[in-house]
């Protein structure tokens, strides 16, 4: 589960959209090195944007995989757009909303938005933390076995591992996989 960058799927509308969340925790190893203290600066723990992209890729990837009962090997082929206006810090929660724009036998394109819940800036006794839209990530996925070069891959679906199965099960999402 060390390479799961979402904690729970909140909503899955088959072939349409998926919403997932990720809590950013100080216990995560990568935050210790990103960024480590220097002679002139204290430690600055931030979730790297590359991992935010991975979180969106996992969210959108599950949505695309679910559309065909996880029979296809769905791989991230291209990051068409990635914008992030704020760095997620420990204590924040990220919400990924991925939407399928196009879906064909070759692959799919998705658009996604990222909302940040930061308790230090948006929490009050009267209202829960409010979401702030901090970015957009659009992705292209390919169905690996339908690649144009005709390359053959192992039959087993090595993309959707047990980790994905566990996320779906603990999120209460029923699936054939």
């Amino acid at each position, binding site marked *: 589960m060390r390479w799961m960058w979402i904690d729970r799927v909140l909503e899955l509308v088959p072939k349409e959209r998926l919403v997932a969340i990720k809590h950013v925790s100080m216990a995560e190893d990568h935050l210790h090195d990103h960024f480590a203290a220097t002679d002139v600066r204290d430690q600055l723990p931030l979730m790297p944007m590359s991992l935010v992209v991975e979180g969106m890729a996992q969210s959108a990837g599950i949505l695309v995989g679910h559309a065909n009962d996880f029979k296809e090997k769905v791989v991230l082929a291209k990051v068409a757009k990635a914008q992030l206006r704020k760095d997620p810090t420990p204590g924040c929660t990220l919400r990924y909303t991925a939407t399928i724009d196009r879906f064909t036998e*070759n692959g799919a394109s998705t658009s996604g938005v990222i909302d940040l819940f930061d308790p230090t800036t948006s929490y009050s006794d009267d209202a829960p933390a409010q979401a702030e839209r901090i970015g957009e990530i659009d992705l292209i996925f390919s169905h690996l076995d339908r690649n144009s070069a005709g390359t053959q891959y192992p039959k087993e679906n090595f993309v959707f591992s047990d980790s994905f199965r566990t996320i779906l099960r603990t999120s209460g999402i029923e699936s054939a996989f």
Partner: protein
Amino acid sequence: MTRDEILNTISEILVDALAVDDDEITPSATLIGDLGAESIDILDITFKLEQEFGFKIAQGELFPEGITQDPEYVQDGLVTAKGLEMLKERGPHFDMATLEADPSVENVRKIFTVEALVNFCEQKLQAA
């Protein structure tokens, strides 16, 4: 939709999909050579064409797949007569003159130009 309007829409799609400048997009520019497109970009471009023009594109319709790996179509580094015939039949949007003059396999990608893309969209829109 006029041919110029089609070209403008295609230019916007290519600028977005391939991160190229619009002045690089000339009718004779090749997608895979001049504009640096990779196979996955073709999938991206296909999605964007479908979205912008509202037609469906079947697998291999825009650019026939697997030609260069098929011994029936390529022998000793040259596209065979059967290969050229297949490309003409399945790709009426391509200008085959260069490839027919020199059927080297590395010239196959050169028929996939911006102009071929415009022809393709024009033909699809006319057929709709």
